[in-house]
Every structure is written in C-alpha cells, then in structure tokens.
C-alpha cells in the first residue's frame, strides 16, 4: 500500500531550533532514507521551497489566472513529503515516528493513503 507522508512545517518552530536539533533533523532524515531504501519501502522524497515562492493558478470565469503567494494563508505549510510503499497502516505509522520531525514539538506529519499512481516509465 502506498502512502504519502506529508511534513507539516511551522517556520517559527524552525527558527527556534538549536544547532544540535538542526543537526539531529538532517542526520535523522539521511538515516531514515537509508533505512527505508534498504527495506524496499522507499519510492520518493521531495523537500519544497518556502510557500512565499508559490504561484497559484485558478479559474476566473472559466479562464486560468495566475496570482502570487500560497494557496491558503496559514502558519503551518507543507515542507516536503515521503512517498512509501508498505504492508499496512501500522507500518507507515511506525515509519512516520522514525522521522526526526515526529520528535519535535510544533512539527507534525500527516499520513494519507494513495489512490492512484503513475510514476512514468520505471
């Protein structure tokens, strides 16, 4: 079963991290990636730039229109994701808890089941 692990980021929380916490997050993600590659559960991961760099395209009277800025103004935003393929929901929760963000107050992970995939020519 494929799941997307969405990393919800709060910029204020990131600002207040200690150097040690920052290093723990970086090393933790590297170790997590190595681990799920070894177990045959890894599909992809991406980190996203700040939402202030976003453009939004939406229809106005049926015609696409481009505006600056994020889709929704919110304190938290999507910082990146992991796409994994696991046996069941219990396993994806187990994996999510291994991600360093899960041990930092103010950060959160959202786990969503995938309904359809096309990863191109594999």
């Amino acid at each position, binding site marked *: 079963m*494929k799941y997307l692990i969405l990393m919800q980021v709060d910029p204020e929380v990131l600002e207040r991290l200690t150097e040690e916490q920052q290093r723990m997050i970086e090393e933790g993600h590297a170790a997590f990636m190595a681990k799920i*590659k*070894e*177990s*045959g*559960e*890894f*599909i*992809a991961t991406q980190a996203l730039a700040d939402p202030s760099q976003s453009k939004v395209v939406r229809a106005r009277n049926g015609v696409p229109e481009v505006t600056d800025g994020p889709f929704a103004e919110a304190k938290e935003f999507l910082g990146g994701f992991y796409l994994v*393929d696991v*046996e069941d929901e219990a396993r994806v929760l187990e994996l999510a808890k291994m991600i360093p963000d899960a041990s930092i107050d103010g950060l959160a992970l959202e786990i969503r*089941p995938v*309904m*359809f*995939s*096309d*990863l191109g*020519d*594999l």
Partner: protein
Amino acid sequence: MTASPLRVDEGLWRDLVPQALARLLRTYGRDQIDLCEDAVQEALLAAHQQWAGQPPADPLAWLVTAARRRYIDLVRSDHRRREREAREALLALPLNGSESSAVDDSLLLLQLCCHPALPRSAQVALTLRAIAGLSTAQIANVYQLPESTVAQRITRAKRRIAELGGAVPRPGDVTERLPSVLDVLYVMFTEAHHTTIGEPAHDADLAAEAIRLARLLHAALPHDTEVSGLLALMLLTEARRPARVGADNRLIPLDEQDRRRWDQTLIAEGRALVERSVVGATPGPYLLQACIAALHAEAPDTASTDWSEILALYRLLEIVTDHRNPTIALNRIVAEAMVHGEEYALAHIDELAEQHPHLPRLAAVRAHLLDRLGRDDEAAVAYRQAIKQTRNIAEWRHLHTRLRRLLASP
C-alpha cells in the same frame, strides 16, 4: 534476424525458468535460492544472446548447465564460501537424486517463495520473479514502484529464505504451506483487478500470471478442492473482465454489465472445475467463492440470479471462516437485500457498521440500498461518506457517477 527469441516464444522461456531453478536447488540445497536465482537469471541472459533464434535441442539442459557454471562462479566469488560448502554438504543430500517432474518443481518453488515468514509484498514479488519469470523492471512497472525498491525486496526475501533454510518443505509435503500459496496467488489476481482500471497499460498482466500459476498448482494437486476452487474462482472472475470496464475506462457494476461480453470459454472451464470439485467435498473458502461466482456466471441477468442459493453459500462461507471476515458479512448482506429486500438488509448493515465502522465498501453498499429505496437524501449522505472512505480510484469514480445521477434526478 533482429527479432528477440523472447518475443517469439516467451512461453517456452517462462516455463524453463522455474524448472531450471528447481534443478539447481535440488543440486545445491534449498537454502541457496539467493545464488541459484541469480545464476538462472544470468544463464537466461546468456541464452538470449547466444541462441539468437536457434534454440539448442534441449533448451532446459543448456540452461541448467549454464546456470550451474554461473552458480559455481558466484559461490567462488563469495567470501562465505566455506560456510556454504559445509551447509551444502548437509542440505543438498535429501534432494539429490530424487527424480521429479516440472510439476513438482513448480510446487516446490511456490512453497519456497510463499514462505509464511515473508511479508505478503515480498512473497508476491519473489513469486513473480522466480516462478512467473518476470523481470524486476516488469514487476516494478506493474506495481508502479522504483526498480531498486523491487530489487531490494527480492534480495531481502531471498536472504530471509536462506536464513530459514532447513524449514523448507519437500514436494508433496504441502499441507502446511498451501494456504499461504493460495492466498499469495489470490492477492496477485485481485490486485490486477484493482489496478487495471484507470491505470496506464502495463506490459505484464498480473491476472494472467496468477491464473498461469494457479494452473501449475492445479496440475500438481489435481484433487485438492481448494486449489481447484481458487483456479475456478479466478477463471469465473476473469471471464467478466471484458464487461467490467466501460469505453471511458469506468467500472461497470455487475448488475449493469453486458453479459454477452462475458468470456464463455472461461466460464465453461470454471464451472466444470466447480462441478467436479463439489462432489463429496467439505468445501473450503475458495471453493465456496467459486460456487458463488458460478451462480453469477450462469444467470442471464441480476433479476434471474439464484440469490437464495448465493445467500446460503455466503452463510456457509461465514461459518467456515469463523465469522472473522467482515467483508464476507457485507457480501452476505448484499445477497440478503436481493432475497429479503433492502429494508431488511439495511438493518443488518447498521449492525455491521457498529462493529466495523471503517469497513471498505460498507458505506457504498448502504448508499446503493438507500438509492434503490428512493431515500435520496440519505443515499446522498451515504454516497459522500463512501467517497471519503474509498482508497480505490475506480470505486471513487463510480461513486461520483452514482451521486451525480442521484442529484440530477428530479
């Protein structure tokens, strides 16, 4: 001269893979699946290059010889050589010299690949690779996973089997491992049916692979009624495939399918298997499901289907599975609606929902029942809930279609 021999006669190649692998395992020991499988794959590659459309007189012997050479090279290059040789001496003996047929070989390999200690995804991947003869790339494409992920799963699975070495059964000693083999093949088959709709065309057909492997198993165990039941269930389900997907790639439910498009050859074969197996049998879950599929197959439409008999079979299925599977209960309720009416079925749906609030398809069944009763507002609520709950894109689209139809009706 440019045509690849694999394209010309893929069936021959794919039959040779499990036979060659089984021969190697017999010689070198059953805990050697890791190296033996690699050796067979490399021998296959060599055969592709060297045969060039002109297979030798005895292709299997050629392949086995080439694979043995590759195996020896691999063992020599392995730093654990001495350890292996010691184990080889112990483990190779029981299988050495035993004459066996291709049918026994398939059975041995199926049991090895479907080892209960492996996770289901690894059992399926290994079975597709080692027995069905699919490449890692083909498996990756079917499951839309990176090739490295699939390769890693197969490597881990083979390593795990090697660790469990001594616990591998002999051909004929099937009772313990068989349920696992049947489940792996059925998962392979149902996954094919879940993924075909709305997905890009894949170059390997999982349903066809599952049926091919079930035929192998049936050839090895022709008197096992669960094996016959599984094969019949697959054939009878596969028979409906041409009618199950519409021109716009939409799922067409059973009651709306054009039954003239069902494959009558598959139905005849499936029904014959069922009829042969039910005589004097204590039916297991697969044979019971095949009986239900056969009743659907012989009915010209939903109205003239023998729903009373289907209901009785679902009740029996609940008993033989110790009432542990709520999806069977849900299907039983669908049959109850046809026999005793929607109101009766709704009461039972609500009971089931209390015990299993997140059961897949429950909200969808509830929505259909309310829809049929003309309770439009409640049906719309149930459709919306079903849309939220589903993880299947085909069902998601189908529920949206039904909801739109309901909202558009006066």
